[in-house]
């Protein structure tokens, strides 16, 4: 069912581009948001929401669904774009993002937005919550899987490593974490602010299976997610090497675009660049 044909790959790449454009449009319209880390996660979310996750948009609480947690909650724009495209709520809702009466909060809110598994914002929560969910599913002998997308900045938070220990202790093979490793955080380069390396070794030493992929290559992302399902003795960390601001030349690898908002000319240029890569 999940076999990746060439056509399917092209389709997922196209969805990733659409999610990028939608996110930027949302951020530009609201004049607020976090473009850099949304753009870096586009292929990962495209593969998860349009290839991997078992979901029922008509019944967002369906017990048999796979659970996805966005730990880097500031990438909310692209999560909302993916949820709308997947059919959890009408696309028009995206245009009112941030308004007082809108169901879409600045950071994801599980109580307001269908498809959002957990409220997020402060960094470092996603893996610990997902660990509890994975434990709960296993206690119930459910076979659904738990996915959590982490930012690289939050690797600096102690709770991430607390949760890494817990997930390893309980051998939560139903848990797959994905690290959006774009090496840029709010104040600058991750490797300058607080280096993570050797990050793969760190996760291995915590008892996790570690896979490394190009996070903008949908085939590599999809195959790593498939492979994680074959690991039955421990949780899996997929280190996805990405580019912050991917797809917009002046945003790429620039910490300024972690939380900056494009003006009209920048927005138009960004969309032109992203559309230009279509086909």
């Amino acid at each position: 069912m999940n076999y990746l044909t060439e056509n399917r790959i092209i389709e997922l790449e196209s969805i990733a581009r659409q999610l990028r454009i939608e996110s930027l449009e949302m951020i530009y319209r609201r004049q607020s948001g976090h473009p850099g880390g949304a753009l870096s996660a586009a292929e990962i979310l495209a593969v998860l929401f349009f290839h991997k996750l078992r979901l029922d948009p008509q019944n967002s609480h369906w017990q048999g669904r796979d659970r996805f947690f966005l730990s880097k909650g500031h990438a909310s724009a692209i999560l909302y774009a993916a949820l709308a495209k997947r059919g959890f709520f009408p696309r028009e809702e995206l245009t009112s993002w941030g308004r007082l009466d809108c169901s879409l909060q600045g950071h994801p809110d599980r109580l307001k937005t269908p498809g959002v598994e957990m409220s997020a914002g402060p960094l470092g929560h996603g893996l610990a919550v997902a660990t509890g969910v994975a434990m709960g599913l296993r206690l119930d002998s459910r076979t659904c899987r738990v996915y959590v997308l982490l930012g690289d900045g939050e690797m600096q938070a102690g709770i991430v490593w607390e949760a890494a220990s817990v997930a390893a202790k309980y051998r939560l093979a139903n848990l797959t974490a994905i690290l959006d490793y774009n090496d840029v955080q709010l104040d600058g380069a991750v490797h300058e602010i607080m280096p993570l390396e050797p990050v793969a070794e760190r996760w291995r030493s915590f008892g996790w299976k570690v896979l490394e992929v190009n996070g903008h290559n949908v085939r590599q992302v999809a195959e790593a997610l498939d492979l994680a399902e074959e690991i039955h003795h421990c949780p899996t960390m997929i280190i996805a090497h990405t580019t912050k601001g991917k797809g917009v030349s002046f945003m790429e690898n620039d910490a300024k675009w972690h939380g900056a908002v494009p003006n009209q000319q920048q927005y138009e240029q960004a969309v032109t660049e992203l559309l230009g890569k279509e086909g």
Partner: protein
Amino acid sequence: MTDEMPQREAYGRALADYGELNPRLVVLDADTSSSTLTHFFANKYPQRFFNLGIAEPCMVDVGVGLALEGWVPFVNAFAAFLCLRAAEQVRTCVAYAETAVRLVGHYAGLSDFKDGATHHCITDLAVMRALPNMTVIVPADNNEIRRWVSVLGEYDRPVYLRISRAHSLPVHSPNVDVQIGKAITLQEGGDVSIFATGAMTGRSLLAVERLAQRGISARLIEIHTLKPIDAEAVCLAAAETGAVVTAEEHSIFGGLGSAIAEVLAENCPVPVERVGIADSFAPTALDPESLMDYMGLGVEHIVHAAEKVLRKKEACVFSKPLSAA
């Protein structure tokens, strides 16, 4: 004179018993199960017990995950660390996300007398009370604790339960009826109202006896639910007696005294005296009772507060015609 076992043991045994009644109950602890006595549950139901080590923030979030899957988590740690070290997890993932996590803060107040100020907890009620969506429960004695375990097991909202390491004075019979947000009148009286919570409830019962010997009729009301507070019961007692004393094993900032004063200032202003810990860290001691006495939480402190507030009440009565003119 005190309860037959310390509060923590009453809790630990009640939790193990409740595990049989509720197959969805899961218990988490942070390397303190031999202190919080969740080990009774752990020994009985090892599959539903998770010891996550000294990692309170992570433990809270893992509890949240279990709650999201419909389990009934009781998350246990020393109150000082649950409410301060894990405060952000509690705020974001329990209170804001409205997850049904039962947070249980142990060794509360001064009950960990031997370990010093780092292990005392005199700010948990202030922290928890300030969080939207949070219910805050402080049981007075063991019989009440036994009831709360099953009541909170059925309660599908964020909640904080405060447990002492020490023996408390017995207040209730085994069939005490506890309802969230419903104050319990333990003694009728017309001169002054004493609002007490936790271990100070039993001490206040003794204070009421001493006051009676001095000809003062004190009403005693137990406020086990600090939030949502029973404002109606508070205002009614304040209006009928015209003077109020609060008694808690907590800082005078942010706990019961603050909660009562907020209600009264807006709805029924009467003189108030607060018995609590006056903005200071407590020292190490040889036993919890003498430490409580040393920090201003003695029976005699409650008596003095009642006498003082009665003098204020009289002064207020005399000043009324002046302010009216």
